[in-house]
């Protein structure tokens, strides 16, 4: 049995060596030297383009670059038709996120604690592999499942549950949520699984032994101890969810439209780069708010987990 005291002692030693090593290191610039490559990449390929978009978003006729400064693009971006799509986007992303967590938490728990050593790695591999599939092929596969003559409708008709094919299965918010949830499941399960693996299974047994059923055990023990993984999952998954454009384009129809597909259309279809840029920043702000909120929720100090 691995025990805590020696582990603490090791950590202490590790800390001391780290500090000692840092003190001995010659220049204050060393960290910047190490960081220069990733920082350069970030500046050139992320901050740079973002800056250009920011300029576009505040210019008139910005495509030719001779426009004057204006807020008109933001005014256009905040029109009702875009706001409706924005609301749609947030609804789809939040519903998918909630569904993802509702599926990923139990799944991660089962893989980490219940399935046993024999199935643990195969299941994780299966999850990772499911993400290897080309996203387009995966979405087309969903069309054959959810389509008018797809698997679900055919099966339900054969069983006599329905007389006519369900028409809300595809080209609706529903289908976008299904496809997004399925596509991002591995990215939700893996950080949660990693967080759960740090919990000593005996701690869960102790909770049960002390009178906690599964829900109290989850609320008082599993959730607080996986708060960091919970946060990581939201940060990793929510931004791709809210900015996805392939799923809405292929299975969303008109009711399942999302902001990213509108932005794509503004840039590539209609050539309205200014409005597209402005919408981009609206979307960025929205995801920023969600990430900030999830920090607040997962903040263990503000969460009373003791009672």
């Amino acid at each position, binding site marked *: *049995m691995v025990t805590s*005291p020696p582990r603490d002692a090791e950590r202490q030693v590790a800390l001391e060596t780290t500090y000692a090593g840092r003190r001995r290191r010659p220049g204050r610039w060393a960290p910047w030297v190490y960081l220069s490559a990733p920082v350069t990449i970030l500046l050139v390929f992320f901050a740079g383009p973002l800056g250009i978009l920011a300029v576009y978003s505040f210019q008139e006729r910005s495509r030719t670059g001779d426009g004057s400064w204006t807020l008109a693009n933001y005014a256009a971006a905040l029109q009702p038709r875009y706001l409706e799509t924005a609301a749609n986007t947030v609804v789809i992303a939040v519903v998918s996120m909630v569904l993802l967590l509702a599926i990923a938490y139990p799944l991660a728990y089962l893989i980490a604690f219940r399935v046993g050593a024999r199935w643990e790695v195969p299941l994780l591999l299966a999850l990772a592999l499911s993400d290897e599939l080309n996203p387009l092929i995966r979405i087309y596969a969903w069309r054959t499942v959810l389509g008018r003559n797809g698997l679900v409708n055919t099966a339900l008709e054969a069983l006599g549950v329905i007389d006519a094919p369900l028409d809300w299965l595809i080209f609706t918010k529903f289908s976008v949520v299904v496809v997004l949830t399925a596509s991002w499941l591995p990215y939700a399960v893996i950080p949660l699984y990693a967080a759960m693996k740090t919990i000593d299974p005996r*701690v869960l*047994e102790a909770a049960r032994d002390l009178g906690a*059923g599964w829900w109290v055990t989850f609320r*008082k023990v599993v959730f607080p101890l996986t708060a960091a993984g919970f946060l990581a999952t939201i940060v990793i998954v929510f931004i791709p969810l809210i900015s996805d454009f392939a799923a809405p384009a292929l299975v969303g129809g008109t009711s399942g439209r999302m902001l990213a597909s509108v932005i794509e259309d503004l840039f590539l279809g209609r050539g309205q780069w200014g409005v597209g840029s402005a919408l981009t920043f609206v979307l960025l702000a929205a995801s920023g708010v969600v990430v900030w909120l999830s920090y607040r929720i997962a903040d263990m100090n503000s969460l009373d*987990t003791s009672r």
Partner: protein
Amino acid sequence: MSYALELRGVTKRFGDVTAVDAVDLAIPHGEFFSLLGPSGCGKTTTLRMIAGFEEPTEGELLLDGRPGTTIPPFRRNTNLVFQSYALFPHMSVYDNVAFGPRRAGVPRDEERRRVNAVLRTVRMEAYADRLPRALSGGQRQRVALARALVNEPAVLLLDEPLGALDLKLRKEMQIELKHIQREVGISFVYVTHDQEEAMTMSDRIAVMNEGRIEQIGPPEEVYHRPATRFVAEFIGAANLLEVEVIAAPGGKPTRARFPSGLETAVASANRTDATVGSRGVLVLRPEHLVLHAAPPTDEPAVETTIVETIFQGSVVRFELTTPDGTHITALETTRRPAPGGPGDTVWITWAQERAHVVLD
């Protein structure tokens, strides 16, 4: 009389492996009871069945006289102290201990009173606000104990709780655990592979081997009158000398003979259905042996050769061998000079009233 805990024919199989085989136990209220055995003997599985984490394949379990076999752990009137302590790492000492009372819906002021009282019992009241990671191993151990005790269970279960502590602290905690158990008066079921630990603390010990109970009894009985060869060898050090019963009035052996023809009195035996000719071993504890430089005339003595003498401070250990090659260990106090050195011939005699025979 109702027992705090009763096991009737409890068996646990994992696939083809029988981990626990038809175990019968009855533990009265307030007893310190140990399950002692080597690793893999089924003692931890037995404990986990009592706690409710495993369900018996066969047999029945009674808690406070009521059927308890299928009660889930969170509704069972037992609490477990884990070997790894399993404290909630994100909760303070106080909140760890208060976890059980809160689940039971104990009112706030009652909770505070009980938690503080039990923290005082384990001498941790000054650490109530600390997180487990800020405690030493011994302190965590006390918190784990307090967290279980605060629920006032019918039976407190302890799974090698001192296994992770260093020797000195372990010895201190053994005494302290015994004191705490007397103070709270709750039955303890203590799992350990350390026979010295079991003897130090227990009112009674069950020695387990390969899923079965070999013997149940007070420490003195298990030590002086082992029921099987396994118990004789597992508890303390033992010299086992082959003997044959030559007198057994009413089935109780009184005299035995060594293969060399030497005869000796028998004080006790594991069976009362012996006959003349029954075979077994005479169990001689190293500290019950006396070494003589010359053959004594008034009592039976076995001739041996000293292979090695090992000075251990308060005692000297003698490694001896008989002419037929049987190995014997003897311990003598250093009060008198050694009767010889390696290569010398010595004669051993033993405390006649401790001559216990284990028949096959």
